[in-house]
């Protein structure tokens, strides 16, 4: 059965993706498109953090690099936005590799600190060269519109673009973490000394993981720019990098399917769930939930609750539930054929 779990899971995901826009409004379709692009970013970051064990507090900046690549090509050079998506991934990936080379000499919290410099310097660089990047004022991209002679609501078009990309990138990630290379990633995560002893070049593996994750985030960032139709440094705040990491942890680091939950969280906590919970609280207790910062409180409480209930993230919770179900089932079986009775 477990042999089929991956393809069956993927088929279920693909079906859900195909049906969803028919069941929800155009606005929610627009939001679900962002879930798709966040899924790409989280899957990429998961390869680095979940599978290789390297914490990054800077991957929002790789989304930014992808977004700016697309924006500059589309706005200043007249490229068609779709064609810039792979290029945005390549640019971010190359920069990720370049950063990975020195950064992988750091371990643990030191690496996290080093990666923290990426979004800081990214914002600085964008503001430093306004004639190239648009500076603080930013750049407007063309509004969303369906292409290839297909007349459909722009939100649905964007949804299709994001999820086609996500459903390609997702199995690619699976192939990356599955084989020999994937074993090397996990070996580095579990014990660098043991990995080195077994002939794994930890520096090369970590650098490659950095490049791959940056490539994924660059793709996601490109889609982000297309969907938001605007970029400026405020669009890629340091929070975004942290939010991505939170998404990984809540989804379940080291699980690819968990990233679907992570992506749902990243998209909906800020725009929908946070304010929704606040409205409920204000109705129940007549509290002033429009007070500055109350949204962050909800975010923090949700985060703590999830970590308390499911420390291994959504994927861990699902695994736990499956384990309970199979234990109950096996209990039934053993009661029928209790070895002590034999």
């Amino acid at each position, binding site marked *: 059965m477990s042999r089929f779990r991956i393809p069956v899971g993927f088929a279920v995901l693909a079906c859900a993706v195909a049906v969803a826009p028919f069941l929800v409004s155009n606005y929610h379709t*627009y939001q679900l498109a962002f879930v798709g692009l966040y899924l790409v970013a989280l899957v990429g970051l998961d390869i680095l953090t979940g599978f290789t064990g390297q914490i990054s507090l800077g991957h929002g900046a790789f989304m930014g690099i992808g977004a700016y690549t697309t924006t500059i090509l589309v706005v200043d050079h007249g490229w068609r936005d779709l064609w810039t998506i792979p290029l945005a991934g390549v640019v971010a990936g190359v920069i990720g590799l370049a950063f990975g080379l020195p950064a992988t000499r750091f371990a643990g919290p030191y690496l996290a600190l080093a990666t923290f410099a990426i979004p800081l310097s990214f914002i600085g660089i964008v*503001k430093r060269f306004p004639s190239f990047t648009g*500076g603080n004022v*930013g750049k407007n991209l063309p*509004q969303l519109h369906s292409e290839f002679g297909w007349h459909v609501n722009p939100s649905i078009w964007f949804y299709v673009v994001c999820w086609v990309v996500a459903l390609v990138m997702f199995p690619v990630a699976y192939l990356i973490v599955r084989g020999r290379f994937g074993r090397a990633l996990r070996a580095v995560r579990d014990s660098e000394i043991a990995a080195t002893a077994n002939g794994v070049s930890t520096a090369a593996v970590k650098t490659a993981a950095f490049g791959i994750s940056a490539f994924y985030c660059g793709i996601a960032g490109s889609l982000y720019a297309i969907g*938001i*139709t605007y970029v400026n440094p*405020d669009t890629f705040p340091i929070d975004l990098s942290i939010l991505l990491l939170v998404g990984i942890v809540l989804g379940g680091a080291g699980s690819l399917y968990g990233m679907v939950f992570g992506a749902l969280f990243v998209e909906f906590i800020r725009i929908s769930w946070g304010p929704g919970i606040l409205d409920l609280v204000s109705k129940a207790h007549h509290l002033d939930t429009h007070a500055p910062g109350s*949204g962050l409180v909800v975010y923090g409480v949700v985060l703590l609750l999830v970590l308390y209930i499911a420390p291994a993230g959504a994927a861990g919770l699902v695994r736990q539930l499956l384990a309970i179900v199979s234990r109950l089932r096996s209990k039934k079986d053993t009661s029928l054929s209790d070895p002590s009775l034999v």
Partner: protein
Amino acid sequence: MRKTFLLVAAAIAVSAAIVVTAGAAPSATPGVTAKTILLEGTFPLSGPASGYAPIPAGMGAYFSYVNAQGGVNGRKITWHFEDDGYNPANTVQLTHKFVEQDHAFALVGGLGTEPQTAVRQYLNDNKVPQLFVSTGATTFDRDFATYPWTLGWQPDYEAEGSIYGKYVVKNLASAKLGVLYQNDDYGNDYLRGLKAGLGAAHQSMIISAQAYDLSATTPPSVQVAKLKASGADTFVIFATPTPTIQAYVIATKLGWKPAHVITNSVSATDPFLTIAEKSGSDIVEGSISINYLLDPSNPVYNKQPGMKLYRQIMAKYDPKGNANDPLNLYGVAKAWTTVQVLKAAGKNLTRAGLMKAARSMAYTKGKKNANPFSLPGVSVFTKGNFQYPISQVTVIQYANHVFQPLGSLINGRGALR
């Protein structure tokens, strides 16, 4: 097999029904019913710009007051605002929600130059009014031909800069100006305005202008040192609140005592200047800025009928809010303008009708329908090619934690009447 086929067919039928019903567009004006009008907006309630949070609260207080009086043409206003954290990506998603999900009649007061720039094209494409944005970037007023559904409200930064120029020429004729400005549209709008206000004959009064980067992680020390070294005796600060406070403190630490300090209105509120003073700056007292609204932190205005009404509204509809915070009054004054154009748009309310009303506002002193919450004599006026709703201000000076007005109103946009 047959069962599966039936199930699939049923699922398709249900989906098709959903799609068809979802596609049926409402024929009436979105956000308007016989009894309600839905207005929405995005504001930073969290993050570094959350200091602006009183604005939507003040707007809400005034709308509640109007609703209690019977509303606008028999309709009550529903005011709904959400937190974008000053991140344009959030602004875009929330604005899609307002337009496509909530079907807001109009978006009012949306805060921030960049967040509002991010949604301007979208709103214009969808012909949704983007009214009275809470930013002084000149583009929201000037570019009305390109963006017919967008309009600002407060005096634009260029106009404000020009007022400082005129003030200097008139009152500080021998001043040597040292300008610190932010290296983006915001700072450049101000600097361009200052030069225009000085006029061609007095450009040489600016003996040094130093740009600083908002992205710089260090305070603008080098720039302030250069201004000091230039021999300037009047320090002009065109900066956002944090660099402004830093600039005050750095000047003092460098031992620079400019005879005059001019600070743009964005940063010139008592809370910010108090921080600068407490951080050791001794050049805060006497700072010059501009204002166009009644100032609730100055008791001098307490006898004005507008101030009395403002305090009543705040006490009744936003009792937890700090009525002495000028940002609450800003919100109330903006909501007042909104209600006026809703009234002017008439009983048969449409988005186009609302924009038509907003493009020809004449709330001026002579007509006795001026904004009661602005300084006496300040007009809210738009007509034809003149789309700068508020352009009259008065110069103010900081003394003992209160800004006192100096002299009469000045017009930042010469073309007004």
